[in-house]
Structure formats: C-alpha cells, structure tokens
C-alpha cells in the first residue's frame, strides 16, 4: 500500500485504574503524552474507556493502537485488565484502529528496569526529562508518570521495526 501521510501510533501502558499514553507520529515526533486515571469506586474500565480513551482516539485519530502486555499479571488484576481490553477492542472497532499487543521481551531478557528504560527514552526525547521521576527506593511505590515512559518505549519498539518478532499476539483489524 502506498503511504500518503504520517503514521500515528497511540501507545498505552495499561493498569487496573489508570493508563499512561503517548501519541507518536512517524516514530520520531512525539505529539502528546500523559496519564489518565479513575480513582472512584466502581468499575474504572467504563470511565477509562468511554471518557479518557475515546477522547484520545477522537482527537489524535491514530492508525494504530499499541498496548503493552505485561506477562506477570496478578490474579486480582486479571479481571479489570480483561474488562479494559475488551472495551478497548470495541472502541478500536468503532474508530477503525488496528490493535497490537506487545511485550517488552528484549528489556526483560536484558534485565533492564523500568527506570533504566525511562532514562533511555528521556535521553531520546528531552521534553520528557522533567517528568522523569527519581529512582524509587525498594519500599516506595511506583511513580505514576513512569507509565508514560513505558508506553513510549513500547511505541518506539513497535515503530523501530525490530519488534516484529516480539509481537505476542495481534489484535483485530476492522
């Protein structure tokens, strides 16, 4: 197929009650980034998808949705994650977006931590350097903005081309 314009990728790093997102154009231009969360009681998947994700899809009109798939999911996180994924597939179908689920296999093999990955990404995109959190102590919880860097790492890995063999499963194409 002949390329007519830029390829926009929306990458997500999913968590049970929030997700980090980045929008990348042609793998080199960072358009938007942030964290969307829902801290209310009840089902967060509805708010995350219908309010947060839908507005992102409407605004940026991506051609591809890349989601970071974590291989070590705790049993209590499994159900909310599946609910969110199901909702995302429905939304992607509505907005005609392809979905790819990607694991950070190489980084895991190299035993790279999230902080190290984030630092590498921040070097490439200096605009994100100010959002890079300090290295956490073992007793501290993860900083919420680290998911922005995780999402960007996944987007870069996908658009880098070398990631084709690491695609764990492909989503639907509508």
């Amino acid at each position, binding site marked *: *197929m002949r*390329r*007519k*314009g*830029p*390829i*926009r990728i929306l990458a997500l790093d999913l968590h049970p009650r929030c997700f980090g997102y980045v929008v990348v154009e042609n793998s080199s231009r*960072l*358009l*938007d*980034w942030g964290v969307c969360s829902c801290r209310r009681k009840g089902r967060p998947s509805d708010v995350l998808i219908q309010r947060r994700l839908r507005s992102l899809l409407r*605004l*940026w*009109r*991506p*051609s*591809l949705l890349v989601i970071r798939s974590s291989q070590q999911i705790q049993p209590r996180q499994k159900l909310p994650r599946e609910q969110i994924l199901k909702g995302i597939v429905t939304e992607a179908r509505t907005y005609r977006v*392809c979905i790819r689920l990607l694991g950070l296999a190489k980084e895991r093999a190299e035993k790279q931590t999230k902080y190290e990955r984030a630092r590498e990404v921040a070097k490439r995109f200096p*605009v994100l350097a*100010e959002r890079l959190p300090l290295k956490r102590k073992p007793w501290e919880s993860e900083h919420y903005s680290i998911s922005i860097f995780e999402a960007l790492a996944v987007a870069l890995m996908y658009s880098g081309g070398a990631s084709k063999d690491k695609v764990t499963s492909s989503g639907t194409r509508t």
Partner: protein
Amino acid sequence: MATSRLNNYLRTHRKYSGLSQSEVSFLARLKNKAELSRYERNVRVPSLRTALACQELYGVAVSDLFAGLSDSVASDTRGRMKRLQARLQSRIDPKSTGNRIMQKFQWISHRLLAMPNFKLVQQL
C-alpha cells in the same frame, strides 16, 4: 495504515512549551482556556488574529501549526485553479494572441506548474 496530517498541532506545541492552557490563552488574548481547548480539540477554527498569535508564540509557521487544514485548503484551491484553467482554455481564441484571457490562462498554468505534486493533465 497511513493517516492524513492532523487539522492542527496546537496541543503538541503547547505541551512542548510546558505552558498551561490558561497561560497560552492569556498570551494569545483569548477569553478563557475553554476557547483554546476548543481550538486544540478542533471543535472551532481560530480567527486569523489568534492563528498569527500562535505562530508568534510557538515560533512555527501557521501552515505547520494548522497542517491538515492547510493541506485541505491547498488541494481545494488547486482543484479550483484547474477548473478555471479549463474554463479559460475553452474561451481562448487561437487566432488572437495577447488578450486578457490568454494572460490569465498563462498565469494560472505557471502557478500550477510551480506547485508541488502537480500532474500535467491537460496539454496545451
């Protein structure tokens, strides 16, 4: 898989600047941040004054800030120029030279040739 350029890249440039919506709306002389939000979400098209203010603010040309809009306007104008060229061509009298219709036709032809991605459809 390729997509067209977005109508505007206001949000991207604002995020790169690190400014908030209320700060940018103050700088661009907008009423409030809701107005800027409407421009960023492509709900409204800003006035020429606001567009020029954004150009000055971000240091990016208006055609790059409103890339998608610029592309659509350019292709529309090009199409209209081709239509006018065809209309003028039918009115040209081959015997007389140097008339105003010929002059207009030549000017439009030169402009179309100078444009990027121009396909020569009609031969003189």
